[in-house]
């Protein structure tokens, strides 16, 4: 598990977009589980994305269907069997503490609950890597801590988690590795989970950043 920080425009979102194959790197290479994301064919993109779970700041739930159908969507896309879908979806909802809300419509849920539905949807197909872009951006500190705790739980069962966040206090508290970006370059890489001082030396990035799940 690692955090990605930096000012607005530092390249956090771009990095997440490159990993989730929304954008391609203009220079250099990005490797995901030894797959070069730059050279991947267009029709292979969906299959690579299935190894990733993405959590959005604004949840991006589908409001025309109940919570259960929202969470089950990745499994339906991947062609799982009906019984398997029901089993896994309930398990994912249970993990985020929303098992009782499976029949509710997302619009009736609070912001924190909606975010937890988003997390359940991102983990239901057991991805190798979990990406979260400002997952606590709209939540109060208590809810934010709850959400982060869910990420830590997933990390403990073997899922790699990369969280882009502004919430420096929370990051400091959790003591996880931190990657700090500035102007598209990694200026600090602290695997001890300490944030950089303002006058710290610039971190020199290598030619290729490899995001290999399991290493963090």
């Amino acid at each position, binding site marked *: 598990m690692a955090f990605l920080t930096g000012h607005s425009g530092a390249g956090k979102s771009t990095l997440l977009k490159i990993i989730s194959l929304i954008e391609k790197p203009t220079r250099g290479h990005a490797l995901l589980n030894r797959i070069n994301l730059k050279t991947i064919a267009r029709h292979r993109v969906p299959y690579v994305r299935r*190894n990733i779970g993405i959590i959005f700041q604004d949840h991006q739930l589908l409001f025309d269907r109940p919570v259960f159908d929202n969470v089950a969507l990745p499994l339906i896309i991947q062609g799982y069997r009906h019984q398997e879908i029901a089993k896994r979806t309930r398990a994912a909802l249970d993990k985020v503490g929303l098992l009782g809300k499976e029949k509710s419509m997302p619009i009736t849920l609070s912001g924190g609950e909606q975010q937890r539905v988003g997390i359940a949807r991102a983990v239901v197909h057991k991805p190798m890597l979990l990406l979260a872009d400002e997952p606590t951006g709209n939540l109060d500190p208590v809810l934010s801590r709850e959400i982060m705790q869910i990420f830590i739980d997933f990390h403990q069962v073997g899922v790699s988690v990369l969280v882009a966040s502004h919430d420096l206090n929370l990051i400091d508290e959790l003591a996880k590795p931190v990657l700090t970006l500035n102007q598209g370059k990694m200026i600090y890489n602290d695997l001890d989970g300490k944030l950089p001082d303002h006058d710290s030396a610039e971190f020199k990035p290598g030619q290729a950043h490899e995001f290999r799940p399991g290493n963090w």
Partner: protein
Amino acid sequence: MRTSNTRRDKPATSNQLIAYLLHHVQSLIFSLGKIYQAPVPTIMTVAVIGITLSLPGGFYLFLKNINAMSGDYRSITQITLYLDIKLSEKKARAFEGEISGMKNVQSTEFISRKISLEAFRESSGFGKSLDTLANNPLPHTIIVEPLGEADTFAVKNLLNTLQASPQVKIAKLDTEWLERLYTILEIAKRSVVMVTILFSIAVLLIIGNTIRLDIQNRYQEIIVTKLIGATNAFIRRPFLYGGVWYGLLGGLMSWLIVEIGYLAISGPLNRLNLLYQADLELITFTFQDFIVLVTSSTLLGLAGSWIAVAQHLNQIEPT
């Protein structure tokens, strides 16, 4: 690239096939559910398709009826023989007897020159001015009715035989008006084909546009599903089935419209039958016509949505 195939609990291939088919059924029902959730716009789209298709459908039915009616007239072709004016009535009557024994002849009718003149005097209105003529200018006439089952070729043969006999001055087959009718029918048939093509294109555009709006309305949903790892085929499916439903329902609607029109016309037509003691009977769509109408409408729906999906879906990429 072995990203997804080597994953642990991936479903087995046979299960995947079942899941694939299941998803088709799900998409079919899901798109029907979408229609059910928004009935008013759907009814409007279906009505537009139904009305559009009812025009070629109704035109086709009209033509079919005209065709059936003109088929009845085909059997009342008759040959009129104007005999040599110098032929005596006795010889003419003998010739009539000769003809009635010929092959392919149903019946003959003899009209003497005297009767012809009387009939002409009454119907023409020349009256007394005809008396100033020294001689009756009209010849004896024989009307020959060919057998009902004789085909055009046999009738033409009969005509030629009669024309060749010395007693006959002119032999005339009364089919000119029929040929005119057939020419008009041919024009009408081609018009039906053109109308059908034009209106089919209209339906294609209507459905294409509806699906395009549908895609735009669900823009966000498409992006989210793409990010979750949906293939284009997966995203395309509910839209294609949406088009299929529009086409199917529109086809049924057009059938309904034409049937209602048929019922509306059949009342006055029955009265007309009574008045003229005619035997006109309207024919409606056969089961086969119905199947053709609904199937082609459904295929138009599929094609229309395919065009929309091909144009717009691939352009939507998450940013």
